């Protein structure tokens, strides 16, 4: 299989403009003749569905939530980057592009990233026009804050609820189209499979979660905006329902899965408190603007933090990375925390935590200013831990947060299956091996508002869409497969709940394919995952029936896919014999413990082709060419 990325020729600044001119258009009157299915209503899905409907396409949107507004984009706290240079501090499209490529540890496609930086400015404008209440200065102009991995202030924010406000903006745009009858919205419908007819994505199979009915929906193109797969680790900052099913099903139908091993571990999460823990809570990275991260200098120092004098504290990020300090990128900050804890200097229960201390900032700025900036985050921390960060330093620990990998897409955001487009976190395209803070919101909205509306037209303009009948054999076979899987799950009637399998899988993945990986661990995981999967299909129990709301069944179906997908991740992590961004292989590090990239052999996108359950997938490579950014060791020192 030949991976054509369709990157336009020409200088990088002109690629997108040129491409937009070259893309074929669909006549306004003809747009309503084309139908699109959008799965997922987060930032990418909602913005795409709304924008496509505005253009006149016939759109159907799907979400497994009871409302489109609940997608996990809503939980993003810190902000959204845009190269507006409102602060006059030297920002530019080029700098955002450069920062993102470098932040991604030189494993992203230059052309995609440049386009992202270009449209970032339009996103802010669009959101302001929707009434998104971004933070403002007294003069009424937009306010910015700085964020990890950048030396300029380019992050726009709405208190600690930026994701919520941006999502509500997109959701409202979507609701407007639903109200106008331009989008048919299907709530509480979970995608179970992709319908590929004559080599093209032509629809999806869903389960109505309220009635249990397995349904088919046809269209001329399918957009997956179904988020990431961080929940393969069971404990992550992802919402509980986040899952890999939609993208993994598409993978099983032929779509290549790219770079699944690139997982981002966020440095500032609230440490785990017990076995019952159901998820981890993220504290916005923006806290690192004013908080200082430290651990005791000496192992086993059990004194309470206020009893530890300055001389016995190790502000390790400031020490190791003086120019970026506490604002070092996420992968670096996370690994540094793990190192400190592995070194026996962690704090809190189990020694799995480091301090994030605001006492200096409170002294310098006063409690009121700090409360203005982080009040809601401090409240949240206090509710969860029972401690107030105004008096006691926060305890934080890294947790799985975002997955850079995803379905492989070309420059048009179309996968190798024609007609299957993938947006937002679900695709692999823009963040390389590591995503910078405040860039996920940017990418989701860039894809949905400003990329897909152009590129999907180019696909439709090619024509050749014959109608697909509901009762055609291929459709019926796919539906039957989905129904049989549900029946199978319900009939096993074993002893263990889906959650217990999920938790066990998560533990394997965190230990063997988590923040640091090695060949031995990954090989072990590759034996244990199939065993666990085997047991799952023998011993899982799903109470209740399939013809009504059944949350155990929903979970069972998701866990079943995680149990296959986990293997794919390990294969990818095992094959990538280098350390880069969110993929740290212990065998490949410098003497002082920094990631050691291997550009000679691994400057490519690893896209995997499905070959059957339990069988090793086939690797397809898309070489990454860096014409504008010089490959360099990523240094934040």
């Amino acid at each position, binding site marked *: 299989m030949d991976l054509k990325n369709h990157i336009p020729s020409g200088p990088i600044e002109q690629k997108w403009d040129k491409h937009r001119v070259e893309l074929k258009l669909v006549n306004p009157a003809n747009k309503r003749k084309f139908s699109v299915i959008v799965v997922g209503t987060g930032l990418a899905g909602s913005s795409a569905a709304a924008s496509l409907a505005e253009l006149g396409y016939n759109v159907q949107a799907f979400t497994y939530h009871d409302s489109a507004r609940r997608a996990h984009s809503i939980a993003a706290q810190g902000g959204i980057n845009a190269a507006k240079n409102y602060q006059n501090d030297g920002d530019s499209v080029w700098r955002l592009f450069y920062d993102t490529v470098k932040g991604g540890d030189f494993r992203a496609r230059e052309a995609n990233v440049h386009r992202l930086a270009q449209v970032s400015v339009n996103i802010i404008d669009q959101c302001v026009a929707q009434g998104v209440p971004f933070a403002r200065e007294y003069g009424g102009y937009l306010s910015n804050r700085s964020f990890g991995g950048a030396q300029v202030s380019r992050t726009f924010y709405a208190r600690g609820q930026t994701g919520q406000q941006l999502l509500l903006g997109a959701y409202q745009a979507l609701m407007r189209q639903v109200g106008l009858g331009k989008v048919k919205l299907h709530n509480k419908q979970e995608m179970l499979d992709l319908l590929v007819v004559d080599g093209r994505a032509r629809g999806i199979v869903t389960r109505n979660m309220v009635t249990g009915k397995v349904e088919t929906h046809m269209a001329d193109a399918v957009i997956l905006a179904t988020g990431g797969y961080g929940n393969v680790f069971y404990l992550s900052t992802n919402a509980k329902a986040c899952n890999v099913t939609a993208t993994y099903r598409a993978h099983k139908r032929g779509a290549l899965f790219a770079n699944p091993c690139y997982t981002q571990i966020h440095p500032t999460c609230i440490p785990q408190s017990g076995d019952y823990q159901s998820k981890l809570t993220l504290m916005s990275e923006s806290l690192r603007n004013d908080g200082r991260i430290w651990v005791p200098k000496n192992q086993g120092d059990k004194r309470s933090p206020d009893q530890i004098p300055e001389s016995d504290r190790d502000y390790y990020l400031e020490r190791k990375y003086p120019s970026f300090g506490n604002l070092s990128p996420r992968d670096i900050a996370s690994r540094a925390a793990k190192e400190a804890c592995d070194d026996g200097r962690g704090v809190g229960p189990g020694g799995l935590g480091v301090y994030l201390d605001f006492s200096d900032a409170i002294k310098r700025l006063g409690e009121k200013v700090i409360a203005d900036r982080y009040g809601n985050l401090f409240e949240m921390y206090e509710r969860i831990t*029972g401690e107030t960060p105004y008096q006691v330093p926060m305890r934080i620990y890294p947790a799985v947060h975002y997955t850079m990998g995803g379905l492989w897409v070309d420059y048009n955001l179309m996968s190798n299956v024609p007609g299957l487009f993938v947006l937002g976190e679900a695709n692999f395209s823009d963040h390389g091996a590591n995503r910078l803070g405040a860039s996920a919101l940017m990418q989701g909205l860039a894809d949905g508002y400003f990329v897909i509306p152009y590129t999907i037209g180019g696909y439709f303009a090619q024509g050749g869409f014959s109608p697909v009948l509901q009762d055609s054999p291929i459709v019926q076979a796919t539906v039957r497969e989905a129904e049989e899987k549900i029946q199978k799950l319900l009939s096993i009637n074993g002893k263990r709940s889906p959650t217990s399998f999920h938790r066990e899988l998560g533990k394997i993945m965190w230990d063997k394919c988590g923040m640091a990986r090695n060949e031995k661990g990954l090989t072990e995981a590759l034996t244990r995952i199939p065993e666990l999967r085997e047991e799952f299909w023998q011993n899982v129990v799903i109470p*209740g029936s399939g013809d009504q709301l059944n949350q155990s069944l929903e979970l069972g179906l998701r866990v079943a896919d995680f149990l296959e997908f986990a293997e794919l991740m390990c294969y990818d992590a095992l094959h990538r014999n280098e350390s880069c961004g969110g993929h740290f292989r212990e065998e490949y590090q410098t003497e002082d413990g920094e990631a050691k990239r291997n550009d000679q052999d691994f400057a490519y996108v690893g896209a995997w082709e499905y070959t059957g359950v339990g069988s090793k997938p086939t690797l397809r490579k898309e070489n990454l060419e860096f014409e504008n950014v010089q490959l360099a060791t990523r240094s934040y020192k």
Partner: protein
Amino acid sequence: MNLRLHIWRQSGPQDAGMLKTYDVANVSEHMSFLEMLDVLNEDLIAKGEVPVAFDHDCREGICGTCGMVINGRPHGPLARTTACQLHMRTFKDGDEIYIEPWRARAFPVIRDLVVDRGSFDRIIQKGGFVSVNTGNAQDGNTLPIPKTDADRAMDAAACIGCGACVAACPNASAMLFTAAKIGHLGSVPQGQAERSTRAMNMVLQMDAEGFGACTNHYECEAACPKGISADFIAQMNKDYVASVFAGRD
């Protein structure tokens, strides 16, 4: 700690439903309320019973999915805290806890504690937006917005659409929810063009969905996990009546 739970069980929209009693042992004070229910559900599954269905997702108090009335209060006893952020340290050993779904005609029960809040979406569809197509926008800094207005807009926009206001209101009124959106968009210049029709259409949809009317008890703002003020209801009332007299709809 050990707890006795009385949980509303209802197997489907058409069923009658009733409170059933469950004992849970060894609850840690660090658990969240939903984690405590997870533990109960794992127990039930182990015993071959059907677990309690309840809505939840982000478990960090922002998605608005979770919601249940805990001992007579939506989201439980703590102010400005969603059920997922409520931790068991709020309770003590031997407590009896009553857990019920949101109850309102416009929020029919789907199963156990899960209700259908589609009525909220339909209210938003009637005007909870600024009609601006993608690509229409001018530069974000073209219109300065006084900080106080931006802050006020944000106060209202913080609504997570959980429905606690409806659950708490003795009249099952959705006025705080609706007013929050009208108040958000009414506080920024971008929302002015449609201000009048927005108030009119959203308010009438709220009635059509079968929500009750506000009688100014202020239970809604006390129950709101985001602390949205009932001030916005006053503003909505004014906007609505103004639009009645403006006659431009």
